[in-house]
């Protein structure tokens, strides 16, 4: 709410300047969006009296004005406003002035005529289109007749005020009014407010109830509904003081009747609605749910189709307002209005909130009804509004209030002890200190031996339990004054559990291996959600009401997201990308049951893995590089069982000849490979190598125990062997034989060369291995090694038909 400092000063002797007051409000009541003066950034704007006006000799729309700016002699200003007239006080921007949008005004010649400044419209001095009065949309503003030429215009327009723009939380609906602000500020400063209320003088003998009836069938919709009728109204502009109150609060002045209702809304937080009495199609007012599809034209001339959850105010059965949200065009106040039916009500907050959202009609009224209305001031507000309309519209207030429903004004009794207060807040407050806070808040209470019983007034409907009172005590005492401690030391031992350790270690290892952590979106398209899954799961889980077509389903693999990242980089000429991601995938289970969430880890590399430099060739991403990363990762994670890689040509998104499933025992825990060239094309990326692992399967795997193995002091013996084999025999096939038949002393087998090419027979390749033998208990003799080696060679020939080269 835009709270006027000057308006506050009418009710409180404020001890601090606006900025300091705002800081206190932020620390004690509600947050502050902004503190500003409407005149910020504006200079040299003075009152000018237009002495005479004559047409510009060279223009059909400009006029030459002789203006008294309080300097004895008149100055000439060229003006283009259609409503310029002599003998009016206007806003003059002198040469050197700064006006709205930081525009500087200079002395200039306009079509040959000197112009010593500019005559301004409100919109030109910082007023928004939404707050400047509509009547002056097309022209300049006229200042009061008694304004003194040469003086600053700011005081005349309320622009010397300071506005404290508060951010009202949902619980503090009371802070949506001047009254609520005054009460809270009085409480934290310890002031006595002198809030002025205007009593109504019913100056018409006519009984309101003879003019209108109110019949609220469902009192849940409108727990309080009251009306007054005002007759013989003259619709005209409001006085300037009232217009200033409104525009400084961001509300556009319209006419006396509407302005009064908005003024009362600001002052009491009570939204009012004024109907043109004559246009009410029936003089019995009711409140009901709208019928589905019922059409209704609101004040903004928008024809709306209502739903059965909307609440309407009716005349007879005919809707005349969208309750608490916006009035109807049909019964709106116009220049011709002579009688006004004035509504002051409390509507159901939830229904109003939903209705405002449904129709995207968040108004000053609806935002107050949503947060609740002070039942203490419904009638006060109605009376004061009627009286002001009478005063400003030379009208008559008929006798009596017509009440359709009325919620009792009741206080809430909340018990609280001093001991409990200090126990929760960590303070050492005394009975007197707590009592003092309740006095400042103007809450009635009784107290015996440190036990309070507090009567919370209806105006603070947010307070109903002990914790609410504790908040009042804490904030008025001051959060700054609370001691600052840490929770008492207990036997809690913090730390990551085994699973959390595993996840963190997984990230560290992959970073050490050169991959950068990416965090991509979990929500994706239905199509992408199903790509690259380790195991197929069918349809992904879908959002009921997505926001964008790019994010409608939960991912079932991480690779798709990483490829989006690679594509994002490629589109920005970043061709060398090495990423990994650790995160959740979501596997749908039964309907209405949450999906199974699995932690996965995946990587994607493309382009140069390490850059070519002046003396180093660099390393290009390829299958064996990504596989090396996976192998090293799995080694580091100490998976006890053997990890194997099995060619899989049936993954549709993957290169059929360059993809391997990763198995632990017989279960597939992931895969590694090059993405299918067709996929690369679809993603608009270069050859990209990926892997994905299901961490759930890895976390639960038995891990290698940390045993120290003594380094044997006995020497090793090595034998190299080069094998010419058929091209479809794999390294794994050969290793199987060597490891199977290698004997007890074989400690290591290392592939050191692979050759396919011109010097070999067709469909053959050559693989060369070093076999290392060692007896950990003694010196190995050549003979034993020769025996073991010969056995392996024979088996290779026998089983794989190799040729030893």
């Amino acid at each position, binding site marked *: 709410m835009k709270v006027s400092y000057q308006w506050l000063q009418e009710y409180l002797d404020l001890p601090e300047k606006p900025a300091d007051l705002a800081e206190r409000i932020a620390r004690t009541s509600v947050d502050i969006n902004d503190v500003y003066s409407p005149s910020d950034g504006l200079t040299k704007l003075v009152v000018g009296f237009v002495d005479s006006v004559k047409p510009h000799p060279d223009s059909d729309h400009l006029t030459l004005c002789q203006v008294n700016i309080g300097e004895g002699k008149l100055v000439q200003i060229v003006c283009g406003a259609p409503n310029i007239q002599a003998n009016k006080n206007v806003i003059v921007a002198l040469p050197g002035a700064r006006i709205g949008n930081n525009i500087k005004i200079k002395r200039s010649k306009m079509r040959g005529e000197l112009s010593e400044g500019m005559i301004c419209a409100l919109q030109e001095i910082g007023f928004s289109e939404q707050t400047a009065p509509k009547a002056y949309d097309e022209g300049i503003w006229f200042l009061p007749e008694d304004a003194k030429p040469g003086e600053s215009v700011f005081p005349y327009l309320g622009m010397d005020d300071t506005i404290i723009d508060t951010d009202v939380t949902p619980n503090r609906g009371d802070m949506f009014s001047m009254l609520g602000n005054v009460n809270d500020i009085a409480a934290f400063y310890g002031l006595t407010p002198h809030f002025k209320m205007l009593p109504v003088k019913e100056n018409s003998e006519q009984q309101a109830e003879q003019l209108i009836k109110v019949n609220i069938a469902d009192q849940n919709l409108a727990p309080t509904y009251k009306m007054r009728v005002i007759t013989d109204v003259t619709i005209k502009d409001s006085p300037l003081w009232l217009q200033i109150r409104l525009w400084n609060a961001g509300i556009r002045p319209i006419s006396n009747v509407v302005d009064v209702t908005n003024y009362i809304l600001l002052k009491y937080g009570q939204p009012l609605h004024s109907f043109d009495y004559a246009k009410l199609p029936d003089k019995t007012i009711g409140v009901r749910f709208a019928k589905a599809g019922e059409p209704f034209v609101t004040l903004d001339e928008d024809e709306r189709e209502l739903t059965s959850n909307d609440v309407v105010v009716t005349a007879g059965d005919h809707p005349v307002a969208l309750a608490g949200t916006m009035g109807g065009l049909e019964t709106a106040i116009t220049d011709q209005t002579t009688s006004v039916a004035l509504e002051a009500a409390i509507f159901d907050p*939830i229904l109003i909130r939903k209705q405002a959202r449904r129709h995207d009609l968040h108004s000053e009224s609806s935002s107050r009804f949503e947060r609740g209305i002070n039942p203490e001031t419904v009638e006060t507000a109605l009376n004061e509004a009627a009286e002001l309309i009478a005063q400003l519209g030379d009208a008559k207030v008929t006798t009596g209030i017509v009440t359709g429903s009325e919620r009792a004004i009741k206080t809430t009794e909340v018990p609280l002890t001093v001991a409990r207060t200090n126990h929760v*807040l960590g303070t050492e407050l005394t009975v007197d200190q707590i009592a003092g806070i309740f006095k400042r808040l103007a809450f009635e209470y009784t107290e015996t031996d440190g036990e309070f019983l507090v009567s919370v007034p209806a105006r603070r409907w947010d307070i109903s339990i002990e914790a*609410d009172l504790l*908040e009042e005590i804490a904030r008025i005492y001051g959060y700054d004054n609370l001691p600052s401690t840490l929770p008492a030391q207990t036997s809690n031992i913090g730390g*990551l559990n085994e699973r959390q350790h595993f996840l963190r270690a997984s990230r560290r290892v992959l970073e050490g291996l050169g991959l950068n952590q990416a965090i991509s979106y979990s929500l994706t398209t239905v199509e992408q959600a199903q790509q690259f899954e380790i195991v197929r799961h069918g349809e992904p889980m879908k959002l009921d009401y997505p926001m964008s077509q790019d994010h409608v389903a939960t991912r079932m693999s991480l690779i798709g997201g990483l490829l989006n990242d690679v594509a994002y980089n490629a589109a920005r000429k970043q061709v060398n990308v*090495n990423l990994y991601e650790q995160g959740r995938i979501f596997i749908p289970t039964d309907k*209405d049951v*949450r*999906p199974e969430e699995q932690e996965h880890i995946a990587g994607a590399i493309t382009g140069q893995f390490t850059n070519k*430099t002046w003396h180093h060739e660099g390393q290009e991403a390829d299958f064996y590089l990504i596989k090396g990363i996976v192998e090293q990762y799995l080694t580091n994670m100490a998976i006890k069982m053997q990890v194997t890689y099995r060619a899989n040509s049936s993954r549709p998104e993957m290169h059929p000849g360059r993809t391997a499933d990763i198995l632990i025992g017989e279960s597939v825990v992931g895969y590694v490979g090059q993405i299918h060239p067709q996929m690369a094309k679809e993603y608009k990326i270069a050859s990209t190598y990926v892997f994905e692992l299901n961490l759930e399967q890895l976390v639960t795997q038995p891990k290698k125990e940390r045993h120290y193995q003594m380094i044997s002091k006995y020497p090793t013996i090595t034998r190299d062997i080069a094998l010419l084999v058929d091209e479809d025999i794999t390294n794994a096939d050969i290793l199987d034989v060597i490891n199977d038949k290698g004997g007890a002393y074989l400690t290591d087998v290392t592939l050191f060369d692979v050759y396919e090419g011109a010097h070999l027979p067709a469909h053959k390749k050559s693989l060369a291995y070093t076999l290392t033998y060692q007896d950990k208990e003694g010196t190995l003799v050549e003979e034993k090694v020769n025996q073991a080696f010969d056995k392996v060679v024979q088996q290779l020939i026998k089983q794989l038909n190799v040729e030893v080269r």
Partner: protein
Amino acid sequence: MGLKDKLDQLLQQGLSEVKASSDLEKINDIRVKMLGKKGPITQVLRGMRELSAEERPKIGQFANKVRDELTSAIEQRRNELEQAKINAQLEHEKIDVTLPGTAMAQGQPHVIQQIIDQLVDLFIGMGYEVATGDEVEEDRYNFEMLNLPKDHPARDMQDTFYITPETLMRTQTSPMQARMLETHDFSKGPLKMVSPGKVYRRDTDDATHSHQFHQVEGMVIGKHVTMADLKGTLEVVAQELFGDELDVRLRPSYFPFTEPSVEADITCFNCHGRGCAICKHTGWIEVLGAGMTHPNVLKMAGVDPDVYGGFAFGLGPDRFAMLRYGVEDIRDFYQNDIRFLTQFNQKG
């Protein structure tokens, strides 16, 4: 010429040749020539048998001296030349040490992960356990058990991706409050937990909004946990993240699951409180929300609010990262431009 003179002459000749020699090969030649078995000194010594018994030892001694002197001169010269050769070699091997080193592959944790890890480690140090919850939650845990019944206005503040009427993408990490309260065994001591993770809101992505972001939730519930403890804890967090030169301000706020509720601000690090565009001219930057756990939340989770109480807080790592590094567009975190990711080096 007597033998002695001959030897003396040989010594002088040898010394001058050694002095004049400029490479190791020549030194070796001199050694062989002068001291070898066929060399002149050996020759001279062979002529000793013609000498008298009296002279023989004198000449012998002298001859040995000549040989030693030559040997040591040769050694010395050889050392000099070897040293010179090594020096020449080293000179030859000189490289431009300002040329860049070999490119290494080393990845970085995501900047948001770094902040999460930093916070998690801070809380672990204060005895908190780490709880990780599911990203798809039940409405009951995400809202109802946090004192947000179906029609609560605060639900409007968190536009939600629903899957079914009862399941949703969690809008906050707070459901972990309810889940941990339900399962914690209070006979074993207070609950102290921190829970980081992804959350989702039905928002249109732009520079300041993302339909996916992160939160870190924290909660301490025990028999005597006070609002002063909350204040102290929040100050520790703010100082850990932003340094201890900035002031921390607590102010009232509203969350359905805490009462009293607070928000914590720090002095704007950009303008140091004078007011600037980053802090919207308030001098303060909001960094987290917190409060004393609402008795309804405890009750709904089966914890007696008359016996137990405490605080909860929530932080936004995305926002922290934006503030700390001046990141202007939240989408940068999720698009994973390699130039963005590699900027946030770990300090170890």
